[in-house]
């Protein structure tokens, strides 16, 4: 069971690291609002990765827990901002009222 848990946790962290790499690749390629959206996405992925790694630490003192939860909350907020920016961009591209391209 221990090996299974370790394997699953390792896969989670590895996937997070790959998300980081591919997101940074997108940030390099795109510009303007999509670029901004992915920048937030990268920051969100980074925070969530660090929070995930911190959660493995066995000696969960108050400071460690505070950092872990703080990073998770920040990651969630940045992810929301990223999705909102992407949503605005898509609505603008669709030519929705109030989101027309200038």
């Amino acid at each position, binding site marked *: *069971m221990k090996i299974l848990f370790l394997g699953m946790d390792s896969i989670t962290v590895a996937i997070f690291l790959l998300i980081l790499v591919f997101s940074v690749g997108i940030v390099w*390629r795109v510009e303007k609002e999509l670029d901004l959206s992915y920048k937030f996405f990268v920051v969100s992925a980074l925070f969530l990765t660090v929070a995930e790694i911190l959660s493995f*630490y*066995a000696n*969960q003192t108050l400071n460690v827990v505070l950092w872990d939860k703080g990073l998770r909350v920040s990651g969630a907020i940045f992810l929301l901002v990223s999705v909102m920016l992407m949503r605005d961009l898509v609505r603008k591209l669709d030519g929705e009222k109030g989101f027309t391209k200038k």
Partner: protein
Amino acid sequence: MRVHMVVTGFSLSAYFLVAFFDPGFLSYDLRQKYHALADDVIAVTATVLDVPVKPVVIITAQCVANTLSLELDWADDANTYTYDIDRDGLPLVTGISSSGYSDTAVALGTSYEYTVTAQGPMGPGFAVSDPVSMTTLSVCETIVTPTITLTSFDSRSVDSYGGTPRVFDRRPTFAGTTNIQNAIIQVVVGPPSSFLSEFTANSNGYFSWQPPLNFAFGTQVFTVTAIDPDDSSRKVSTSLQFEIKKKDTSTSGSNSSSEKKTAKTVIPSVGELEVKAPVDFSLSVRNSEKKIFQGEALNIFLFIKNIDSRYHNTNIPVRYSIIDSKGNIVITLTMEELFRRGAEIQRQLDLPASIASGKYFVQTEVSFDQMNVSRREGFTVLDVPLLNLGGGAFITYAEIVNNLGWIVLTLLTLLLFWLFMFMREYGMYLQALRHIAERQLMNAGFITKRREGTK
């Protein structure tokens, strides 16, 4: 002494001086000495025992004369001195010489797993049986009479001594078993000096005890009592008379006078020894589930139940010791404590971070003039966990250190792979930039179709 050294020195000098001028003399002389030795016929008969044979254990469940038991049996082995039996991972009995055992400390319809370790001249661990499980009978009209047996003394079966055991070791280990699970074990040893100790047997009823200090020389009586923790009136005792021998009894002077002293001591017969301790106290470990991580503090709690009026309200030195499962003292320190009737004493012993994980005992001793009163309590030291995988699964420092090579190699490989992916992504970005730039240049007419064709 000086004359002797001068004569020896002179003789050797003369011998080597002759040898220097006449090497033939030296070789002749040495050859003569060699032949003188070689010509002597010395017959030595030695029996070299082989490694013990792995016991193949057969268990039968039975109920005979209202006694429920599991009968363990295995083949005799001339290479084995004694056998140790573990039940469900805990010692059940140690140092028995017979090739069978009747376990009566069992409950109706319960399954138990046994392993038998044969101890030979090569030491333990060479012949451990495969674990064998057996379930006791579910129906048996049992009358459980408390029993206690002293199985081994000074790492040898008690039966093998054939009379009063006589040993040189002044701190021999006593081991035995009772059919009262988690029994309170009271030990009294004496005279001339008295040892009083109280501790708990394990869930199999197994107990072992080693005196905290050296026994005096001479014949003494060891009395052990097992008390049911749920019913203090249910108890059983046994005694063993033993003798601590002096290694060198040929010398005169002080030794002979002490022998005379020992001879004058009245030795009680087995079962007669009754010693009243001037202090009665309990010892408990207050850490959660008696489990403690390496480097943490062990919380010890002493409760003084009763104390002789001579010692009431006085400071008495108390020795605290941490003892490992092999009986070695790992940590020991002495502190003066104020002993009052009904007083509660709390102490914290900091365990080093380097202490090995496993089962330990904390022992508290109070020594009076000719009496040592001690209490013992077990606890477990756990490896410090470094990573928490959830669901109670941990990865400890020790596990990481043990697999450091693989961990570093894996992490390094993953890091290189990650950097490679990062560089690849960056390369793809640069390539995309170049393509975009080329397309724009083409649209503006700076790159001709000929260039496109040559691509």
